[in-house]
């Protein structure tokens, strides 16, 4: 399932996938895979992404 919340949170801060990838120390393709729902990140990476985007885990990764 696509993670549109992550994509919109990133876009809201005007960050490219590469920018976010650099901030959390992964490759751009990994961010792309998470947004497309191809890859389930570990909790550590989720936390790093949340911290970089100023969001909580629930806001970005909780499926309703």
């Amino acid at each position, binding site marked *: 399932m696509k993670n549109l919340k992550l994509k919109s949170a990133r876009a809201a801060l005007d960050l*490219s*996938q*590469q920018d976010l990838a650099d901030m959390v*120390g*992964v*490759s*751009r*393709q*990994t961010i*792309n*895979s998470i947004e497309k729902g191809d*890859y389930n*990140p*570990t909790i*550590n*990476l989720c936390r790093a992404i949340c911290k970089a985007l100023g969001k909580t885990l629930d806001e970005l990764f909780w499926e309703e």
Partner: protein
Amino acid sequence: MKKTTALILILVLALAAAAGIWGMIGAARNDSGYSFSAQKNLEIKGGKAEPEKVSMDFGIDEDGDHTVSLIWTPMGKELSDLKDLQPSDYSFITGCVISSADDPCVYATSAGWMSVDTTINMKAGNYTLTFYYLTSREAYADFAAKYFGTESAETMADWFEWDSFKKDDKLVVSYRGTVSAENGVSSNLWLALVIVSVSGMLILIMLAYVGKDGIRKADYDERQQMERGKASALGLYTIIGYLLIMFIADALGFIGSGLHTPVYMGGLVLCVTVSAAYSIWHECYFALNQNRVRNVIVLGIIFLMNLASGIFNMRLAAKMDPFGNGSGSRLFRVGFCAIELAAGFLVIAVVLFLKHRKDLREEEE
């Protein structure tokens, strides 16, 4: 593995490698014998070689085992040209004899164009090396009877079906060879010791120092590491499946004897290609993604070189006997393997190119 243990083992292997190199130098120094390189004119007329034999004299300084290696090939001739000259389908039949004043046959062999690494016991003294050109079945049978015994002569002559040399020509035949003394441990064994030691050192360095906790941390994120594991597993399953299928095909007799090398080489190429393609597509193949355009060009050049080599060898093989026991079969196997490698490099280059385009598209989005 503990780094201290690895270091001790590496030092031991380094000493073994040094001993191997020292041994090789010693073996080369101690080598005494005869080494030659010569050219002789040979004329083919009315189905016979003129002169019918070529001789060279040489001397040996020490008694003992000697290794004989001989190569004789017509210069300026492609192997395909030999087809019209040779009595059989796949070789230029020549008898080689080393004789001395005491012994008319110290060593005898017959072969297409080379005879390698035969060990014979020789006493110090003067010898004559003679190449006989055997242009008919009778000539070959006579040679075999004289040097290999009358019982085997007819059987050996039956191996070859020929009439005579097929066309008149002039050849310049190049001769190279060595008759070298074997003192103590052979230089090949020293070389093997060096190779094993250096390989062992590399493996230990990889295991102990390059890795997750080593001096060179892999620069992959968690997803990439997971994908690398999948790529390795995929390569392993591919080769297991391939070998299983080929084993059954081989057992059922679908794979001819001349095809064993290319078929099993194909398994390795397929395994590496599948693993590399998966890794590239999932962005976890270390160096290839750094500069994709350059790497696609390099891979393209390697592909073209292998393809050219494959086509060249296959074309030559097709002019001889690709499924026999001679040069044609060897060229066929080399050509087949080169084409397999070319296919592997092509697939990797194409996947790299497609991945590059996919990433460009994603970046634009």
